[in-house]
Each structure stands twice: as structure tokens, then as C-alpha cells.
């Protein structure tokens, strides 16, 4: 059964991926890829960090660091240029956000619109805790009659 499940999963994935490509109007330019590391290792590590925190907009579940899309390559080149020009991380994120919206950031800032997303896990944790406490309390009040009745199974 296992291989079968993976095949179905693979097919599903392929279908999702091709649907994504099919609906994207954004055709991508064939062109320059920026390759090679930055000479300054500190800049290179910041470059790697930033490009992992920026979303590729045409392949929406990839960071621009991982994407082969041309736009991602251009955005990487842009990040490089800004790093070399001495821009701070915040300035680079700000530049991208001003042009592509909050969606481009993998760590959206906590504000009125995103508070729900950031808060939801904690809210759910709280709900779970309340439910557990209630159930445990209710059960502890129940008389102990755990003995299975004869023939009940």
C-alpha cells in the first residue's frame, strides 16, 4: 500500500504544481542568473539569510533563495546590489514590501491584520488546555466504576 500512496501523493503534487504554472500569467524571462558568492563572508551570510526570508512571487511556496524562476534571480540580484551598497536588512525588506506587499515576507510583522495568524496557535493551545482541565475535573468527580461489565466487549 505504501508505494501506491506515494504515487498518488506524487501525482497530486504534480497536478498542484502544473495547475500553479498553468494559471500564472506571469511569464518569466530567460536571462541572467547571478552566481558565485559575495567576497565579503558577512555579506554572503546576510544574503543567504535574506533570500530565505523573501517569498518568490511566481512560485509562491518557495523562497527566492531556492527558486529557479527568473524573477527570483532578479530579486536575488537586487538584494545583492543593495547589500553591496551598504543597505541594512530592514531597508531591504522594506524595499521589497513596498513593491510586492507584505506577502513577499515570510515573517510578516505583527499588526492588526496579522495578529490573528500569530495569535491563533496560542489561542488554540489555550482552548485545548481549558477543554482538558474541564474533562479531567468532570471525570475525577465520577464514581470509580471502571470494572468492565461482563460480556460488554
Amino acid at each position, binding site marked *: 500500500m505504501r508505494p501506491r500512496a506515494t504515487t498518488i501523493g506524487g501525482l497530486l503534487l504534480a497536478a498542484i504544481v502544473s495547475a500553479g504554472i498553468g*494559471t*500564472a*500569467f*506571469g*511569464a*518569466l*524571462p*530567460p*536571462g*541572467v542568473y547571478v552566481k558565485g558568492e559575495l567576497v565579503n563572508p558577512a555579506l554572503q551570510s546576510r544574503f543567504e539569510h535574506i533570500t530565505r526570508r523573501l517569498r518568490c*512571487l*511566481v512560485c*509562491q511556496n518557495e523562497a527566492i533563495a531556492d527558486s529557479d524562476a*527568473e*524573477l527570483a534571480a*532578479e*530579486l536575488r*540580484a*537586487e538584494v545583492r546590489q543593495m547589500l553591496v551598497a551598504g543597505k541594512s536588512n530592514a531597508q531591504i525588506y522594506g524595499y521589497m*514590501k*513596498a*513593491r*510586492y*506587499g*507584505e*506577502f513577499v515576507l515570510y515573517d510578516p510583522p505583527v499588526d492588526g491584520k496579522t495578529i490573528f495568524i500569530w495569535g491563533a496557535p496560542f489561542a488554540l493551545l489555550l482552548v485545548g488546555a481549558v477543554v482538558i482541565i474541564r474533562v479531567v475535573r468532570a471525570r475525577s468527580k465520577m464514581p470509580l466504576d471502571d470494572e468492565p461489565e461482563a460480556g460488554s466487549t
Partner: protein
Amino acid sequence: MWKYLLPLGVFISLIVLFAVGLNPKRDIHYLPSPLIDKPAPEFTLTDVLDPNRTVSNRALKGHVYLFNVWATWCEACREEQHTLLEIAQQHVVPILGLDWNDQRSAAQEWLRDLGDPYQAVGFDQNGHVAINWGVYGAPETYLVDRKGRILFKHIAPMTMAVWNKQFLPRIEAARRGGA
């Protein structure tokens, strides 16, 4: 009572969430541009037809104009070209073009073969201007008002329906409002 109402409420909100989130007509690639109502980025590039001439959107300050991003590797741009020619013939607004990450000779050939609806086309070889405008896939068409603000952005090939429904009313409103 709330023991029954709460699950029902959760169920209904899930239905609403799925109805919105899984609506097949919803385009997950549609992202509202944060540049709407913001000043259009200025640029100066070489003219795609003549590398010795420059093209700048500064020359169009004071005019309502279209800014169309295209390239020869973009099939959908070929599709919209006749619409752009038709729009250009209406002489409502000038169309400024941006040839994004392209080859100059291919672009010149394209304009010769398909027709040239543009007042001028800037040649954006490294995509720097396109990124500055928040472009993420060609074709994209922007509407800029007299004060140089971006009023509207259409991602996908231009059609006459889009032009009549989305662009013309905005152009008229911009002119009436003096913007």
C-alpha cells in the same frame, strides 16, 4: 445550549472559510499591489528602437498614461498586442512600454512585425525598473495619473473588455477630478 451552538458556529465558519478559500474562481496569484495610489517610480532607460535615445516617464508628468510591461519571450504579450494597437488608435492616453529582460534585436523585430502601439519603449535589460514597479510577470499594465500616481494595475493580457470596464472609467474620473 452553547454546547450545541458552539460546534454549529465552528462548522458554519469552516464552511464560509472553505467557500472563500477553495473557490475555483479565486485567482491565488492575484496579489493587490501596494503601489496603488503611490507615486510611480521614475526611470530613464535607453529606447528599445534606438540605444542612443533615452526614454523617461518624467516626460509624461502632467498626463494620464498607460505603462505596459512586455517582452518577446512572453506569449501572453503577443496575445494582447492587437488590443494595445486598438487602444492606441483611440488616442485616449499615450502608452509607455517597458521591454523587460529582453533582447533588443528581438524586440525591434517584434514591434516591426506586430505593430507598435507605444509612444516609446524603455529597454530594461536587467529588470531593475520592473522590480522597482513591483512587476512579477509580464504582461502587466499600469494606469498613471497626471500627478504621477499609480491608479490601477492589471495583471494579465489587456482585452477590450478590461479596457472599457476597468481603465476608461478611471481615466475619465482622473481627468474630471483634475488628478
